[in-house]
């Protein structure tokens, strides 16, 4: 291309605009020049509370493209469902209702205090608070907590939820679940003891420093045995929180109303401001964005960010109502070791050097809508994430290093380049476009990539199946990954531990088989000191990067609409990319 210099000038101009934006963001205020509206200001809900208020009443109106994956606390796995469930479920411990990093702190919820952990790190004891009740006024006991958790073992009925508690307490799978339990009270699980109605004791066969994190997930919620409708529990969960179900039409509508048996003094973390929570499910994203902006709804339930057309209008005209949130998702390309020539580390490194990270960022929507260029395999919210940058990606501001890429190709024995097959999911907005961008970038160093589009719903059986991957000759897979809970175990183990390499639903897509990494995971998980664990995760991250096993390219961000009526809006790092729903209020009585 001969027209180099005007383009350079334009790039510089673009960089200046970005820099100006960053500065504004760093100042953190809402800038009135950039947007009309009466919102609390651009990024007003990041690391602080937008419109703090204690005023109760009104209806919080939410809209979403997608319904909850399940309203049953033991069956839900989507982050938005976990966020929403704090309206009607309580756990022994839960995340603090505070903005930013303070929101990842575990605080006692049903329990009087966080766990009393025995010296060997294998026994966790909790005492329940006084005055905690169900929505019918009956007292909530430690047996209800145990029964709720036991439901996780009924894997043929209670499907879909996370398996962490089950795998930790009963790694051999000896217990068969409460529905096949022969004991009279259906409380046959030996690893959990309930000496009295107020006390619950967990006995772990092996130490796990993240065990309290597992209990903080909705999977650790109590369920009253008499109200358990098994698979049908999702259509009418029995509430222990400040709200209860008035009606639920799956795929259409959820209405929660106040649970008058819930007592504020028994619950130190939930403000419970609105009188009613009204959720509408509507499949048209563009329309949902428009109605959010016109004020028909207050907040997006799914928290997947606005559509391109919505965010252009929002950012240009109503910037004070917009938050640019981190989602803690990492966008990545897995380089599959079993596919030639990616068995050779130099060919993998050639991809790292040949990729124009800034171009991928722009294709996904630019700095605001796509997120920041990634260097570490761990998202910022996961302890262990660092600024280690062996390929100089951040240093070059995401631009490729063609000379180094060609050099690596030579060392790999493929000086002329090679061919590769890259998969991308066509139902993930922007992913196919990004794959096309990568295709165009790698062509410049001689790597000829063909893009294979897949339906994301089939990923478990296609990209998640090493034999199918081999048969179809895939060598690179583009996708995104977020943590179940903000530690290395909850994020990185399924991606990099060779023992998680399974025939179906595999997420170790690079097919990394590294005994040292496996051992480091064991070591980190056994640590009860999270700082020590973080140091080990840092080493894992470094090793993955040094071996060029798995290429992160973006720390994802969303443009999220904050309705003008919303009060107490903030993003906590425990619910990255979304507001902490249970804290939200509205400032008029409608």
């Amino acid at each position, binding site marked *: 291309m001969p027209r180099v210099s005007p383009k350079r000038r334009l790039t510089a101009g673009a960089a200046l605009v970005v820099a100006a934006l960053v500065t504004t963001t760093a100042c953190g205020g809402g800038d009135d020049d950039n947007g009309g509206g009466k919102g609390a200001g651009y990024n007003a809900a990041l690391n602080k509370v937008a419109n703090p208020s204690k005023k109760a009443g009104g209806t919080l109106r939410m809209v979403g493209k997608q319904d909850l994956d399940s309203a049953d606390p033991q069956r839900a796995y989507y982050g938005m469902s976990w966020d929403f469930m704090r309206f009607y479920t309580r756990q022994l411990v839960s995340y603090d209702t505070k903005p930013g990093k303070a929101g990842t702190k575990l605080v006692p919820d049903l329990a009087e205090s966080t766990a009393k952990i025995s010296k060997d790190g294998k026994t966790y004891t909790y005492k329940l608070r006084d005055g905690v009740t169900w929505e019918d006024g009956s007292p909530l006991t430690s047996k209800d907590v145990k029964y709720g958790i036991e439901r996780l073992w009924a894997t043929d009925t209670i499907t879909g939820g996370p398996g962490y508690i089950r795998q930790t307490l009963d790694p051999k799978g000896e217990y068969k679940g409460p529905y096949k339990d022969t004991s009279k009270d259906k409380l046959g699980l030996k690893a959990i003891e309930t000496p009295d109605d107020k006390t619950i004791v967990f006995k772990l066969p092996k130490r796990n420093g993240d065990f309290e994190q597992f209990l903080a997930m909705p999977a650790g919620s109590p369920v009253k045995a008499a109200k358990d409708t098994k698979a049908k529990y999702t259509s009418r969960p029995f509430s222990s929180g400040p709200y209860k179900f008035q009606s639920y039409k799956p795929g259409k509508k959820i209405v929660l109303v106040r649970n008058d048996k819930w007592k504020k003094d028994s619950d130190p973390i939930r403000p419970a401001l609105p009188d009613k929570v009204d959720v509408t499910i509507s499949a048209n994203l563009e329309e949902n964005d428009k109605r959010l902006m016109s004020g028909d709804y207050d907040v997006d339930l799914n928290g997947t960010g606005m559509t391109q*057309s919505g965010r252009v209008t929002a950012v240009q005209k109503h910037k004070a109502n917009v938050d640019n949130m981190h989602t803690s998702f990492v966008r990545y390309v897995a380089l599959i070791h079993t596919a030639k020539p990616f068995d050779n580390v130099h060919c993998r490194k050639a991809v790292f050097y040949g990729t124009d990270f800034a171009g991928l960022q722009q294709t996904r929507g630019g700095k605001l809508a796509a997120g920041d260029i990634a260097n570490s395999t761990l998202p910022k919210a996961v302890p262990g994430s660092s600024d280690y940058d062996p390929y100089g990606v951040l240093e070059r501001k995401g631009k490729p290093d063609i000379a180094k890429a060609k050099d690596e190709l030579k060392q790999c024995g493929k000086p002329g380049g090679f061919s590769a097959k890259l998969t991308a999911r066509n139902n993930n907005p922007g992913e196919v476009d990004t794959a096309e961008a990568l295709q165009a970038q790698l062509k410049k160093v001689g790597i000829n990539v063909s893009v294979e589009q897949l339906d994301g719903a089939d990923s478990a059986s296609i990209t998640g199946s090493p034999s199918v991957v081999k048969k179809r000759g895939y060598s690179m897979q583009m996708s995104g990954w977020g943590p179940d809970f903000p530690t290395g175990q909850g994020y990185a183990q399924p991606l990099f531990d060779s023992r998680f390499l399974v025939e179906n639903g595999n997420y170790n897509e690079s097919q990394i088989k590294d005994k040292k990494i496996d051992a480091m995971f064991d070591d980190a998980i056994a640590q009860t000191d999270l700082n020590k664990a973080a140091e080990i995760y840092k080493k894992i991250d470094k090793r993955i990067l040094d071996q060029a096993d798995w290429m992160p390219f973006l720390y994802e961000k969303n443009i999220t609409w904050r309705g003008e009526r919303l009060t107490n809006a903030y993003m906590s790092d425990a619910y990255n990319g979304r507001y902490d729903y249970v804290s939200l209020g509205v400032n008029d009585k409608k």
Partner: protein
Amino acid sequence: MTAPLHDTPADAKPTEDVAPAAGAGVKKVEGRSLKQIAWNRLKRDKVALAGGITVLVLVLVAVFAPLIVSVLGHPPNDFHQDKLDPLTNLPTGSLGGVSGDFLFGVEPNKGRDVFSRIVYGARISLLVAFLAAIVAVVLGTLFGIIAGYFGGWVDALISRVMDVLLSFPQLLFIISLISVLPDDLMGLEGTSVRVAILVLVIGFFGWPYIGRIVRGQTLSLREREYVEAAKSLGGGRRHILFKELLPNLVAPITVYATLMIPTNILTEAALSFLGAGVKPPTASWGGMLRDALETYEHDPMFMVFPGVTIFITVLAFNLFGDGLRDALDPKGTR
């Protein structure tokens, strides 16, 4: 065909003055073949002529796409993200980034040259449309002529097959077929596989349209005297089918082939729009329309350019086809 007998010699007596004039008039009428008549009619039909010229230009654009793009555009798969607003990812400048450098502007998000992609898209559209029309014409003529000439159970069988195919949901069938077929087939790979599949499938579902018309024409032609004459002179079946009947079918076949091409263009665009066309990054008009959907409110020009291109192409082919039909119609005036 059956021209009325000219009664010239008997009347050509009266005066010497009239004779040359009459003789000249008669000569003129005799000298015009069917082709000439058609051409004269077409020449007078300005609308059809404009359509024909547009078609010609489009074909030239498709054939010389690399040359045109090297002069007026940029390689169709190159990203020019410096032409985008970093905040909104939309083209900077008015009308979707139209400038002397980028004649039709750039794509949002990717910054590829819209002009180059439309020029290259013409290749896919026209290639698929023409080849599919050829497949349909060959199959349709062959089966139509056989059904019409032989009649009886052969006709019944072929006609039922045509009925089945005409009532088949071809769009759904093609979409499911494309999602099932592997990416490398018959030694082909990538784009060529998709083009081959599109051609075969669109052509296969298109032949009954031509087949029915050819069958109907053959039915009426096979009773004509010249066919009888050829038969009584000992002409074989093959001779009668291809030497006697086929030349008389050329006119309707040409017309319907011309009218089939715009339908094929639309089918290809619809399939690309639905994601069952050629694979990205290969440019196609339908694929561009689909990409434009996401941003049509803020960057309408990205939808206008491919949309207008499809519209003009289809209209040109239709006008030209209609004109051709009028011109070739023996019953048409003048």
